[in-house]
């Protein structure tokens, strides 16, 4: 892992239409090449908002994002080729089969033929979906949908992969497969930006995390170092609860 920022985030602020409070509030940070970076925070903290802006889905109210040195607003088309996104909500055609969905999204990235078929086959086996590949997505369990959703975002082997809560609603077996897989991707040179509210998982997986609450970064760093710096907390979760409070969120 080289200490070189592949994503630069400066002063990022987003007010949704009609909102009085910002969803994210003056966030600045750098994400290094080939690291796994976690955005951790309670519901409504601003994780999805941050990831959406990083992918160029909509512009921030204020601030600037660069990916690979390119301003995302000005070079969105170029950047589309190097990023992959796994949205929080399942984004698939429900009346198509898993296989047809993956073929279509692969094709949209310009992948085709045997190479695409083989890659889809490999991932389907890896995520335990090969038996269901030819069934319509609408007949899948929640966990199966999420796994297809995940594959659809990384078929084209992006250099930067964004995952918004990829392990929510997935059983332990599948979750372990996913985490292991993400580690492998990192080793083959993929920068991974990931959100979660599972502290334990993030502690194991991430090189660095940013804890955000109400749109602000309240702690950032290597999870082990963060805990070591605050010896009164046994682990990331107790620290997280201390920092963000125990009250319920929107």
């Amino acid at each position, binding site marked *: 892992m080289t200490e070189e920022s592949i994503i630069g985030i400066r002063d990022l602020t987003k007010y*949704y*239409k009609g909102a009085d409070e910002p969803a994210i509030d003056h966030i600045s940070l750098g994400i290094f090449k080939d690291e796994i970076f976690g955005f951790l925070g309670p519901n409504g903290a601003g994780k999805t908002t941050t990831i*959406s802006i990083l*992918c*160029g*889905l*909509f512009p921030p109210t204020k601030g600037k994002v660069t990916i690979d040195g390119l301003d995302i607003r000005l070079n969105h*088309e170029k950047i*589309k*080729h190097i*990023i*992959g*996104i796994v*949205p929080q*909500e*399942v*984004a*698939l*055609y*429900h*009346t*198509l089969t898993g296989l*047809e969905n993956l*073929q*279509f*999204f692969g*094709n*949209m*990235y*310009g992948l*085709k033929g045997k190479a695409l078929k083989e890659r889809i086959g490999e991932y389907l086996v890896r995520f335990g979906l090969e038996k269901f590949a030819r069934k*319509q997505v609408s007949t899948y369990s929640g966990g199966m949908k999420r796994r297809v959703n995940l594959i*659809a*975002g990384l078929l084209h082997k992006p250099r930067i992969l964004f995952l918004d809560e990829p392990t929510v609603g997935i059983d332990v077996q599948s979750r372990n497969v996913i985490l292991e897989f993400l580690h492998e991707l990192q080793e083959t040179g993929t920068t991974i930006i990931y959100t979660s509210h599972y502290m334990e998982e993030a502690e194991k997986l991430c090189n660095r995390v940013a804890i955000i609450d109400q749109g602000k970064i309240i702690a950032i760093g290597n999870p082990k170092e963060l805990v070591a710096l605050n010896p009164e907390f046994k682990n990331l979760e107790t620290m997280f609860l201390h920092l963000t409070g125990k009250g319920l969120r929107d």
Partner: protein
Amino acid sequence: MFKYFAAYRKEWLILIRDPAGLVLLFLMPMVMVVILSMVQEFGWSTISREPQVPVLFVNTDQDSVGNKFQQGLTEAKIFTLISQLDSVPVTREVARQKVLEGEYQIAVVIPERTSERIRAKIRLLVNKTMTSLMMPDQNFLAGVTNTDSVEVIIYFDPAVRNSFRNAFLSSTREFNSKIESRMIFETFQDELRKLFPGFNMPVIDYEPSVYFKEIFPSGVEEEILPSTTQHNVPSWAIFAMFFIVVPLTSSIIKEREEGSLIRLMTIPVTYMTIFMAKVGVYLFVCFIQFLLMVLAGIYVLPLFNMPPLEVGANYLAIAIMTIVSSLAALGYGILLGTLSKTHQQAAAFGSVSIVVLAAMGGLWVPVYLMGSFMRHLATFSPLNWAHAGFLDIFLRGSSLMDVFPEIIKLLSFFAVTITIAAIYRTLKPPIST
């Protein structure tokens, strides 16, 4: 291009995943064309065949004009004349009231002394003619004119259908001119007899020399008299064709709701590619729909005692007209689907706007019967362009070149709507921000 075909394949797979929906998509328009053509056909027959339309007839003239009118209307075999209600002769005021209340649809009032006044007018005319004939130098009657025209009053219930009113007016006009020419002729005979008492003119039964033969010219060798089928099938077919916006907008909104469109936003593919793939698939659907509707017009309608649809022989022109009309419908659908927030919005606005555009475009009431403002408005409806194009090809045997203006208009409409949709979608992401 590869991405286009991949998107086309996806769209096609989604469409055939719902076979019941697909069958409905093809069957409904066919059923609609047959049923609605039947409704219109039999609606029309009531006027033209059944002699049971009651007409209040107030004959205060009681002289030749009134009597001839009465005779003429009776002989037309469409109307039953009613001159008395509860054995009291109908007055002009009563007739007006009854029509106003909607109890009767038509009342005809022949005012007092109508015959007398017409006769006076004719006599003056005849005298003038004779005088100038016999005594050219003593043109003393030259300054005398008689502009005293005579009004036969006809009350129509406002609810009376336009087609019915026109049929009635044209038949009354016809025998009115017969009556008048006959009176002129008789007066001439009288005057001639006065001048030449010995002269006995043979009794000539005057028949008008000018008849109006209704011919509807068409470029095809034999002239096709347009039947109701000929008018109805294209109208309903175009109407049904534009209803493709309902499934199309639904496909666009579903793609957005399922989140796939958001994913597509992060993928290097343009909205135009995605939209055009939809257009490609739905164009095929529209084409088959139209083909089935035309076939229904040709083969199914005759099974119900209706004249078959005649499509002329210019199949290429028909095919191209079908394609460009479908494209206009699809462009409209893509735009609506992109602009609408929900399925309900799209379905409600989509169907109502098509009904409005169809009515406005003269699909149901011919444009030539509309007021000048409406006639002007009609030229803005894409359904009007499609309708005009098909009528030209079916009825006038027009070639592709003749319907070129319509083709250009429909294609431009498609280009404009789909471009606006793509630009709008590019500027405004499909999620609330």
